[in-house]
């Protein structure tokens, strides 16, 4: 295949924005987007709430500066302040740009883009389209990429980077439709593959495919992953499925109630109440449940999210998807009854270490969105900042790669390398003797992560988690792929995804064990306070000789000094 200038792995918000921007920057470039699903299926579509930008449409006194401060404070001061400045200053521009190309934002009475309050934000600055914001943004970007003639390789599963010393030669991927392993020689590769929170499996709000493929590929190629221990638990996952009820439901005025009917957030965040930051609200729910003030059911303990006082009209117009989901998956109509919820693994703050331009340490390899860690979210991401992150940094990565692509000489990927990959796949498909079921391993991975590397962490639990993940990795070697078909082998696909999750689970658990403090989403009951002296730094996980090796990187500070984080 003719070498590409840019191969983008992932067709969600970050990947599509990167593609659009790269084509805009230099239309002469040969650009491809490779995605394991049709781009419009990507998990960006599930983002309900909105994207933050200090447009000051709703609150006239909102400023970029306030957005920056809220984000840094929300991150528990682990975010790099220069990166946050980029995120928040670019925000108004990018939201307007999306508006200009057709995103159907909800509107205020003066016909400007609507904004609503969101957790951890000092002003109502979350721009939204009802509760389908991510869906409409994804559709808009996909439409624009079709318009621009972006070349898509849909339903291709990325296997590995082809590396020569410190340089990437491109990507090796499997065509799902044929089972063929194909080489994508490329001057530059951008990873935009989304998060890794699905390793918590049934205790996760994520799509089945949010298995951190790009992070795992980068990790195997020797690129460091940053702050992997920071996994955000969203306070309001549906009890049975872990599926998400948007923070918008609380933004619109929903209450969290324990079994005594008490709005218990008054004890944890008396000022912000239900709109405290996510880590705090999640911990509050978990504490209520642990202390026996939750409701009991065969599907587990839970808390009530009560919207009944908001009225049928508001629920139908502003939260229609939530109503549909509550009815489909819990059998509850939120107009009439409270929704049963409990915290669910939702977002991965950690990811591929990049600079503010999306560059990784490997020449020609970039990353953006949830698969990257710039870092703008630090130890805890604010609601409405993740859509913003994928848009702003997807665009920056696309722009940077487009400017830099021609600096790199194209390199060929040898046929032998492709054959080796295929042989490896084939051999993994037929282990002899006793074999393991991938479904069971996946289930067990989710259980051990939720129990031992979950909301509340502690030394002995983490040791247990690390040991269990190691054991699962060992058992994985015996997993059998029983579908022998080349055509659309989803059995093989799911096994490969499990491999990626296992590789990354090791880095999450190792980081959580090393970090002897509590910060943002990472709560150690044996180290209950933030320890700025020892731990105001990023953890870096690198694969060395088949094992995770932890290093560190300083946090970039700016005009905001460390402060205690209270709401």
């Amino acid at each position, binding site marked *: 295949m003719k070498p590409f200038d840019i191969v983008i792995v992932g067709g969600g918000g970050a990947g599509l924005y990167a593609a659009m921007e790269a084509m*805009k920057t230099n239309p002469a470039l040969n650009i491809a987007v490779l995605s394991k*699903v*049709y781009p*419009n*299926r*990507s*998990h960006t*579509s*599930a983002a309900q709430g909105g994207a933050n930008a200090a*447009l000051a449409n709703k609150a006239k006194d909102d400023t970029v500066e306030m957005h920056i401060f809220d984000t840094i404070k929300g991150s528990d001061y682990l975010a790099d302040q220069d990166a946050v400045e980029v995120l928040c200053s670019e925000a108004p*521009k*990018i939201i*307007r*740009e999306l*508006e*200009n*190309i*057709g995103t*159907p934002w909800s*509107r205020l009475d*003066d*016909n400007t*883009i609507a904004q609503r309050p969101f957790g951890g934000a000092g002003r109502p600055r979350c721009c939204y*389209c*009802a509760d*389908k914001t991510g*869906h409409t943004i994804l*559709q808009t970007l996909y*439409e624009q990429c*079709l*318009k621009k003639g972006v070349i898509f390789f*849909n339903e291709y599963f990325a296997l590995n980077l082809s590396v020569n010393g410190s340089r990437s030669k491109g990507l090796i991927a499997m065509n799902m*439709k044929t089972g063929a392993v194909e080489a994508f020689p490329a001057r530059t590769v951008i990873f935009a593959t989304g998060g890794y929170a699905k390793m918590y499996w049934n205790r996760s709000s994520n*799509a*089945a*495919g949010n298995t951190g493929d790009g992070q795992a590929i980068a990790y195997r190629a020797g690129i460091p992953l940053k702050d992997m221990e920071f996994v955000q638990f969203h306070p309001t996952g549906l009890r*049975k*499925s872990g*599926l*998400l009820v948007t923070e918008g439901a609380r933004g619109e005025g929903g209450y969290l109630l324990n079994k005594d009917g008490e709005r218990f957030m008054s004890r944890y965040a008396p000022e912000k109440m239900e709109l405290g930051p996510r880590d705090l609200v999640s911990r509050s729910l978990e504490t209520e449940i642990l202390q026996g003030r939750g409701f009991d059911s065969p599907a587990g303990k839970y808390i009530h999210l009560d919207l009944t006082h908001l009225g049928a009209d508001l629920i139908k117009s502003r939260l229609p*998807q939530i109503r*549909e*989901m509550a*009815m*489909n*998956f819990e*059998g509850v109509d939120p107009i009439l009854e409270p929704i049963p919820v409990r915290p669910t693994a939702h977002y991965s703050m950690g990811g591929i270490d990049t600079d503010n331009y999306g560059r990784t340490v490997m020449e020609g390899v970039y990353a953006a969105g949830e698969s990257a860690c710039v870092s703008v979210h630090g130890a805890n991401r604010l609601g409405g900042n993740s859509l913003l992150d994928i848009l702003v940094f997807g665009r920056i990565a696309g722009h940077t790669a487009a400017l830099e692509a021609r600096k790199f000489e194209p390199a060929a990927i040898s046929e032998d390398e492709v054959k080796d990959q295929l042989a490896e796949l084939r051999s993994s498909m037929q282990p002899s003797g006793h074999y393991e*079921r*991938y*479904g*069971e391993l996946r289930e067990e991975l989710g259980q051990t992560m939720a129990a031992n590397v979950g909301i509340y962490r502690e030394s002995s639990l983490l040791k247990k988690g690390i040991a269990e993940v190691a054991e699962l990795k060992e058992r994985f070697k015996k997993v059998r*792929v029983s*579908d*022998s*078909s*080349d*055509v*659309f082998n*989803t*059995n093989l696909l799911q096994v490969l995804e499990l491999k990626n999750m296992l590789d990354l689970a090791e880095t999450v658990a190792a980081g959580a064990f090393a970090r002897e403090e509590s910060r943002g989403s990472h709560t150690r009951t044996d180290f209950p306070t933030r320890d700025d002296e020892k731990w105001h730094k990023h953890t870096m996980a690198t694969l060395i000789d088949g094992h995770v090796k932890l290093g560190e990187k300083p946090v970039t500070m700016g005009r905001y000094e460390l402060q205690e984080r209270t709401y």
Partner: protein
Amino acid sequence: MTVSTDQHKEGKRDVTFRVFRFNPQVDSKSYFDDYTIPVERGITVLRALNYIKEHVDASVSFRAFCQAGICGSCGMRVNGISMLACTTQVWDMLAKSKEEGVIKVEPLRNLPLIKDLIVDMDPLVDKMKHYSNWVDSTMPESEMGKKEFLVSEEEFLKYDKATDCILCASCVSECSILRANKEYVSPAVLLKSYRMNVDTRDSMHDLRLAELVKDHGVWDCTHCYRCQESCVKSIPIMDAIHGIREDALESRGMKDTSGAKHAEAFMSDIEKKGKLVEATLPFRTNGVLWTMQNLLPMAVKMILKRRTPPPPPMVKPSKGIKAFRSEFREMSEHVKQDHKSHKK
């Protein structure tokens, strides 16, 4: 909504899933496999399929991603109707099964089959491209990001519901025209085209509309409403299709197409006779020469083979035609007024 009520009180039972199977590498034709598994009340069809894949037969192939009804991956036919497996309750489907305790699962129709429950979505994407299913902004690229378009609620409401579409292709699968003609634009693409055409930020309304009124376009729809009935997001797709037609007829004067002529001939018959004059309708729609060459031989054959009765050459006005005409005029006037106020 899909939450079942009190029809099935028991909490757990065995259910047989009769799954469509086809692997192009080994099968010369498709067949069905039966999988009988224990299912609890409250389980979705997708979760049941996942269970089968993990515990019974890992080779059963289907797409699934978000599992929450928003990504559109798991469109398939359950008991013959296209829907999302992830938002469909097994219990609800049992109530509608032809054979007690058996749920039939098949791939979507009208798209090329790849394997088992997986169909090729590329033809749909190609049509989205063909009909320019994107906003071509009136704002030059260099100006973007600087200021917002101001969009009133009224303008927004015109396309709001249409933007719910998740391209699951349930409507594509149910469409009766696509079964006969794979080149037909398809309901999802008409919906998206409508959504773009009513967006005040878009600049290529006329070009898009010109493409939509060509062959295989908006006039091919026969109003069977199956797209709308099967829409998993309850989008009034037919409103969009009517919207495009009205737009083509009323505001753009695109009357020089057979679809438009057909509609006009229909209207004039109804007004004059209160019913259709079938014998002359094709001539008025497609022109005399074309009809003689292309339709007449077929019509004669059909009449000879007794597939259709010969159309009566003269049609008398229906009984009560006078009262009907005045009502008809009143209705037409109302529709015109509606359009005027809508456009303001």
